[in-house]
């Protein structure tokens, strides 16, 4: 019964996080592509959609905090380790990438999307390694 409650709590927290994440990604895509393809860079509409995206983003962060709270101490440790690695990779990798741009070693401008991808991939890899380590 207790396990069912715990599992149910986890399921609810995961479902909530997934919903807010999907909504955030969709609203982000709308704010970027909508401006060019739908409302032809109308400033008022852009501000409105970006504001909605920010509010959804805040809800997503809150859902993530709730998701973390629903986990037990080992699961929290695995998450913390993965987040630490992702943060480190983001700072070190991001600044190295920025330095390559500033010193003109690379011809193109540094893009924030690369940093997001680096953080996401390093987080996922670290999470999988952590789960495997304690399996």
């Amino acid at each position: 019964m207790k396990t069912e409650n715990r599992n149910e709590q986890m399921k609810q927290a995961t479902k909530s996080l997934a919903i807010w994440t999907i909504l955030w990604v969709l609203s982000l895509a709308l704010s970027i592509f909508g401006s060019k393809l739908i409302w032809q860079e109308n400033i008022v509409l852009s501000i409105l959609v970006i504001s909605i995206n920010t509010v959804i983003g805040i809800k997503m962060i809150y859902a993530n905090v709730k998701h973390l709270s629903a986990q037990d101490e080992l699961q929290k440790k695995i998450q913390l380790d993965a987040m630490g690695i992702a943060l480190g990779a983001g700072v070190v990798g991001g600044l190295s990438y920025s330095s390559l741009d500033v010193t003109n070693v690379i011809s193109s401008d540094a893009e924030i999307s690369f940093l997001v991808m680096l953080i996401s991939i390093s987080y996922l890899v670290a999470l999988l390694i952590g789960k495997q380590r304690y399996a």
Partner: protein
Amino acid sequence: MKNRLKVLRAERDMTQADLADSLQVSRQTINAIEKGKFDPSLPLAFKLAKLFGLKIEEIFEEEE
């Protein structure tokens, strides 16, 4: 840290899932503690001790 969790659990005919259920943690956490891969927090160690009716030091032992 070494521990007698597996033996204590077996003596009481409990599965890892049963123990996880009683302590409100995941089965993975019980497995990791039993294998010595993860040291539980003090509150969780107290919960374990209370559940088995033992002192913490009767369950956990510092490795030399």
